[in-house]
């Protein structure tokens, strides 16, 4: 396939958190608001006057000082973020909108927070006088009580602090505008992502991963022109005549902001056609539909609780339904199997991976490759062997089925 016009530019944008577009937005006088988890509604951080940056720590392979603070027994992602923060890599942030949605990232964010306690010294990791870190309580369920609670929390811990500290307009009008812009990003990403459903897709999983990540890590208003152009370009992009993959897979699992991981899978012959992991597009790029009978904020609160497939959700029906939804994704994207990857030390996904591995194979007939990975993996020979073996097993299955 012909290279995408902006792919190299996008790749460069992902080399560091404080990338060219972030710098440009800051120069435009906008406030940079960091976050780590899907449960922090990105759209609220993209209100006029500020922009969201989903934190990443690319190329962080040796988080030594962070290991002193968080120990070597919490996930590499949290430690990498901490290390990058300690290195000054997030000093551009004006605020961190924190969530205790997993223990490791919670602890990282607590270190950023100025707690003003007598019992422990604050660290002032982010060298920015305006910086503050605010925690929002995220519900574990998607029931009426949780929607109400989430709305209250978002108002008290996201909107009001943004307004109080930076004078951000948090009116319904401003929210609607943010939703509109957010939905356009969603529309473009979904449009680009749809090509993965083709028999011979005109976009690779790696390319899509890069595009999805820039949409999370860059100010929306600055990345949108590039996304529009890419979506246009996709309309005429021709696939390679000969399929250069041996099977198609859904990649599911925990935090993954490393496109090289997707590249590693694809280099073994498995084309990643769907990305259901933290930082993936399956949930985060579902457009927000506003129900006019409810407030905009309530709509947003409901949207994020209803769309999440996070194993953090506890209700019985939800625990079971998300397996079904994953199987449906495999069907919708014509995938031959599923790769479930959990980060080492990620407790949620360690368990979810186990049960997915059994149920998807047994009850849905989907081949599953179940792996544990680190935050940065591209050099992993072991993983390569696993993926190659998986691809072969899928091929053998196809032969046996006479496909």
């Amino acid at each position, binding site marked *: 396939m012909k290279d995408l016009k902006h792919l190299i530019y996008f790749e460069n944008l992902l080399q560091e958190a404080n990338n060219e577009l972030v710098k440009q937005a800051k120069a435009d006088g906008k406030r940079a608001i960091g976050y780590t988890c899907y449960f922090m509604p990105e759209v609220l951080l993209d209100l006029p006057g500020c922009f969201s940056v989903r934190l990443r720590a690319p190329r962080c392979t040796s988080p030594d000082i962070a290991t002193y603070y968080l120990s070597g027994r919490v996930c590499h992602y949290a430690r990498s973020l901490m290390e990058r923060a300690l290195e000054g890599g997030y000093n551009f942030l004006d605020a961190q909108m924190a969530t205790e949605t997993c*223990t490791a990232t919670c602890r990282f964010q607590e270190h950023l927070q100025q707690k003003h306690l007598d019992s422990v010294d604050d660290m002032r990791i982010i060298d920015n006088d305006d910086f503050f870190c605010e925690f929002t*309580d995220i519900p574990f369920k998607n029931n009426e*009580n949780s929607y109400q609670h989430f709305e*209250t*929390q978002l108002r008290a811990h996201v909107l009001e602090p943004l307004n109080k500290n930076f004078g951000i307009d948090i009116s319904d009008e401003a929210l609607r505008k943010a939703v509109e812009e957010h939905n356009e990003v969603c529309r473009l990403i979904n449009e680009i992502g749809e090509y993965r459903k083709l028999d011979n897709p005109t976009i690779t999983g790696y390319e899509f991963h890069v595009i999805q990540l820039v949409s999370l890590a860059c100010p929306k208003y600055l990345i949108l022109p590039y996304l529009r152009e890419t979506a246009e370009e996709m309309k005429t992009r021709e696939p390679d005549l000969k399929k250069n993959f041996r099977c198609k897979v859904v990649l599911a699992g925990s935090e993954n902001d490393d496109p090289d991981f997707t590249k590693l899978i694809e280099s073994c012959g498995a084309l990643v056609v769907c990305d259901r992991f933290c930082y993936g597009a399956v949930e985060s790029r579902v457009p927000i539909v506003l129900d006019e009978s409810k407030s905009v904020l309530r709509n947003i609160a409901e949207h994020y609780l209803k769309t999440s497939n996070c194993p953090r959700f506890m209700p*019985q029906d939800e625990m079971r339904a998300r397996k079904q939804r994953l199987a449906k994704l495999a069907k919708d994207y014509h995938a031959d199997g599923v790769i479930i990857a959990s980060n*080492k030390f990620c*407790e949620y996904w360690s368990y979810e991976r186990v*049960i997915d591995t059994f149920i998807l194979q047994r009850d849905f007939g989907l081949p599953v490759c179940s792996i544990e990975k680190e935050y940065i993996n591209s050099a992993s020979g072991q993983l390569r062997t696993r993926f190659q073996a998986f691809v072969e097993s899928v091929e053998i299955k196809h032969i046996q089925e006479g496909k």
Partner: protein
Amino acid sequence: MAKKFDVSKMKEKLAEKKNGFEKTVTELKANGFKKNAHDFWYGKPHTAEPGGRRLGELYEDKTGLLKHREWRGVKDTLYYMYMIWGYNYVHMITDILKYSNNPIDFIKGTWRYRWMGQTYLPVIHWFERGLQGTRGEAMRASAWHYRAMVSASIQQICNFFNADTRLHNGAENDAYKHSIYANETTCGTLFYPFMDEGYKYIPIEMIPYFVTCHVNSHTVLNYIDAVQSIGLPGDPCPMCQAEAGIFVLDDVPDASPIVITCNEACDASVSTSTLQDWFADKPLFALPIPMQFDDPLVKKYCMKEIEEMWKFIEDQTGAKFSWDSMVKRLERQNKLQRDEWEKWEVASKTNYYPINGVAQALFRIFSTQYGIQGDFWEEASEKVKKIMYKCVEKKINPFPQTRHRVIAWSCAPLYFSNWCTWAYNCWGLNVIINMDSLMFDMEIRTDSYENMLEDVVQYHMWAPMRRMAVGGMHHIFELWDYQKKFNCDMVAMYDQLQCKGMQGVHGLFEDEFRKRNIKAFWLPHALPDSRTVSRAEIRRQINDYMSTVMHEEPLDPSLLDFDDSMTW
């Protein structure tokens, strides 16, 4: 094939025994009549000087069994024999008769469930490990805490077996219909409204997992291995691994029509529920604890969730919420809390508190988590108070060799919860209080439904280990306040290697210890898994700290290094 009789080994053993006997005779001769008579009457003194007691010499190599029990002097030995050893053996039988609908079920259950057979019988050795070296009031009072825990355990076991369909040919009897299964981390308080009607709260994992680890640490390894055998990595919290493992190994009685799960204390607890749901396959209600529990805005949300849980129970079982049932038990619970405060007052301000570190921690965590479902907690508490006030009045110091008053922080190693007993015997480290005791630290108002609910929410949110281990930093670093309050000069910092919450504040604690010049030692462990960090390794870490940093000599050098790798 029959085991071959090894003559040379037998000869070795006999020679060893002969040597031991000769050594004792020589020692007795050397001591002279006066010292021998004194030792016989009072037991050997707790001192490093020659002639002091050497508890380490009582252990058989590796197994940790006792060559013989400690001679504590005439009075204490006889008290221990009749009022602790004998009394508890007898009560292990009478409690079964008291709580079981049919004692045959108890036998059937013992045969069916590994956690039951392997755990119930060595219970007295659990007492032994926790009470070793104690004398007088310390021994008597601490034993009452153990007694209450055994009674509560037997009640729970009977609740399981009375209702278990597997022991009743699949029949869902009345006991089954009146049982409510909940994660062990869902506090018993939440189920008081249904207890007047005969409903029982059965914390699913409290006996199969939690109690088991303390009594016989071998059992739980089967469950950890079972869950890892289906693909779970070894790094999630081993407590949660074991809680899922009992389901994987099909070792959970089928004793309730419903299940309540909870996210206390951490991410892994939430995840465990996914496996539990699969294997239990029953109507399940998920009860969340808000994470940011200091935020006043979360209370309303949590209140509603608890009320929804009550509705779920009503809906599924036909039970009716009873305010009277709730209040009655809450008042008893409050009284127990006030008793505890009374005890803490003595513990913090004097040297007369007669409960040792392990008895304090386990009693408190067990009683608050299980709640009021019998009178064992109150009975033990009254007896302990009586002994405590005797100590106060007569100025008896139950731990006279205390060199350091220690506060233990974070989650303790379940397979070596008696490290406190060892630490006192070996180094004079007296653990006065611990983090687990300090959670649930409140009374619940009973003057109105709204006040009650508001307090229950707070209570629920202050559960172990949510409040301090995984809660916000404000609570984790309450350590300094409690250290001051309990007048402790040293901190034992538990280092649960797989607790992401505590690992995530490791560095800050190091910084604060240095800044505040606090004497603190880290105690690495893996909660129930004695294979990750052995007991010997834990002891070595403390020994190293005490000798190289504190430059102290042990009170009992025989306890410094011994091999108990195979012990319960």
